[in-house]
């Protein structure tokens, strides 16, 4: 499926699992302004791939290009190869089918204006699941895995948008899980979540890794350290370095800017 791994700033050790996502010479711009350029990286199946970096490093644009959310922004320009399961995402004839295989969790929780149950059942329903019993099972399973079931099981039919911020974010994660995604992309999910809930979600992510590939964009350097197998450092529209997370946090970096950022000297 995948023929060759392009020269990345840092090659992963081993190359044990097949590549879920492969990025070659990716460049993203808005109008004439380039916000991200020259990105080459490969993400393995069942890997948590961390992306750290200060604001305006191009992290969110990177995620948007993967599930083709760039389609809704006429200014956004994406060049290079984005291979999902070895096939470029722009070659998908049915972009909705592509998106349904990629779960996204946004920085701010989005409880859709419908009941908790309907929030989680939305994706299965879009795929044509009609049986109430089947939906019940999916809803319970996804809410349980998102560590929210116990708190909401008695009020599944109240509005999802009335939950607290942390609960809504777990609802968003449950909704993403209901897609049974192959790839889960989390964009700074803990911005509006309290530390205790953050830790609970992090535990969930460690387990989910068994079943899916996870891209974790985070502004919390330590969160990447806790979760990510490998971590990429984005800075000012470039991917400065990709390394095993352990190396990154023990001073074995190739670029001094990475060490400065990881150690909190800037950003």
């Amino acid at each position, binding site marked *: 499926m995948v023929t060759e791994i392009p020269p990345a700033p840092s090659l992963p050790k081993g190359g044990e699992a097949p590549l879920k996502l492969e990025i070659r010479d990716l460049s993203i711009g808005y109008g004439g302004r380039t916000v991200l350029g020259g990105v080459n990286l490969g993400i393995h199946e069942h890997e948590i791939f961390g992306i750290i970096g200060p604001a305006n490093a191009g992290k969110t644009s990177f995620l948007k290009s993967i599930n083709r959310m760039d389609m809704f922004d006429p200014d956004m320009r994406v060049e290079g190869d984005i291979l999902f399961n070895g096939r470029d995402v722009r070659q998908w004839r049915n972009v909705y089918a592509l998106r349904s*295989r990629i779960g996204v969790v946004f920085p701010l929780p989005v409880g859709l204006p419908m009941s908790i149950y309907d929030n989680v059942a*939305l994706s299965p329903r879009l795929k044509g699941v009609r049986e109430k019993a089947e939906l019940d099972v999916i809803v319970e399973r996804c809410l349980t895995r998102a560590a929210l079931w116990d708190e909401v099981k008695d009020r599944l039919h109240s509005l999802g948008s009335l939950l607290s911020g942390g609960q809504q974010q777990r609802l968003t994660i449950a909704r993403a899980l209901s897609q049974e995604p192959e790839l889960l992309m989390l964009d700074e999910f803990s911005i509006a979540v309290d530390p205790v809930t953050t830790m609970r979600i992090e535990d969930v992510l460690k387990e989910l890794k068994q079943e899916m590939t996870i891209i974790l964009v985070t502004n919390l350097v330590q969160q990447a350290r806790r979760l990510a197998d490998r971590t990429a450092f984005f800075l000012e529209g470039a991917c400065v370095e990709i390394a095993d997370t352990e190396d990154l946090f023990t001073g074995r970096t190739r670029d001094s800017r990475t060490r400065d950022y990881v150690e909190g000297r800037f950003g």
Partner: protein
Amino acid sequence: MAGASGIGGRGDHHFDRRNLDWYIDRAVQALVFLGGISAIVFIIGIFVFITKEGMGFLLETVDFQEFFTSPYWYPSDEDAPEYGILALIAGTASVTGLAMVVAIPFSLGAAIFIAEFADGRLREWLKILVELLAAIPSVVWGFVGLTIMNPLIIDLFDVPVGLNVLNAGIILGLMAAPIMTSIAEDALKAVPDRYREAAEALGATRWQVIFRTVLPAAKNGLLGAVLLGVGRGFGETMAVLMATGHAVNLPTSVFDSVRALTATIAAELGETAVGSDHYQALFTIGIFLFLITFLINLTADLIVRGIRKS
């Protein structure tokens, strides 16, 4: 330096004068207050006036039951004039009902297209166009009903008269559609983009995003738009007068001519003697219309306000 002598001290006397700015401020405040209060005063004034003119009739001459349930409106019969507005209510209701059947799909479709699909220039042009359509005088619409729709309906459906419920309903529907589009579009635009993005990220198609997320989220605003359209339908006079055929009649099909409450007042008030039973009966219709449109608009307003808050 001025503060050196302390707040309220002798040194501040020099500054503490009512200058021109102070008087202008007061005058403008008073003017704005008058302007604001006048709207309320006028509405109450109008209500008091029409109530005063019509109440005597309602209380003394005719009982409520006959007024609202009799389909016979023969106010100028010299021996035994009859004042029943059931046929007029049926006329207004049937025309408004048909108008909504026409206007709801048009306005909802237009609003969805403008808010969700059109962008940039196209969107701006469409919005301007919709607002222009809303500004067409109703007598022009009545003219269209009389000269275009009338022969068209006679030809198409092979009926003797083209001035009927169908004609007026279509005309009124087209009249109400622009304002309904405008309000429905506002309601759709008020749905935050993050809802759309979240649904899109789940793999929902454009239509699924709109149908399952945007429309439910905007349902209050859309309902408000429809109610304002209904209010418009009840209150519209000129176009309805011209397109319904103006015949007192309980309609049994859309090809029957009818007469609307509003059109009756417009056509007959000028020919009645002030203070006569007929005159007062027309004012009673006015009270009824006033109450109905007031209720509809109030409900619509409350619903639309409801979404703004949440």
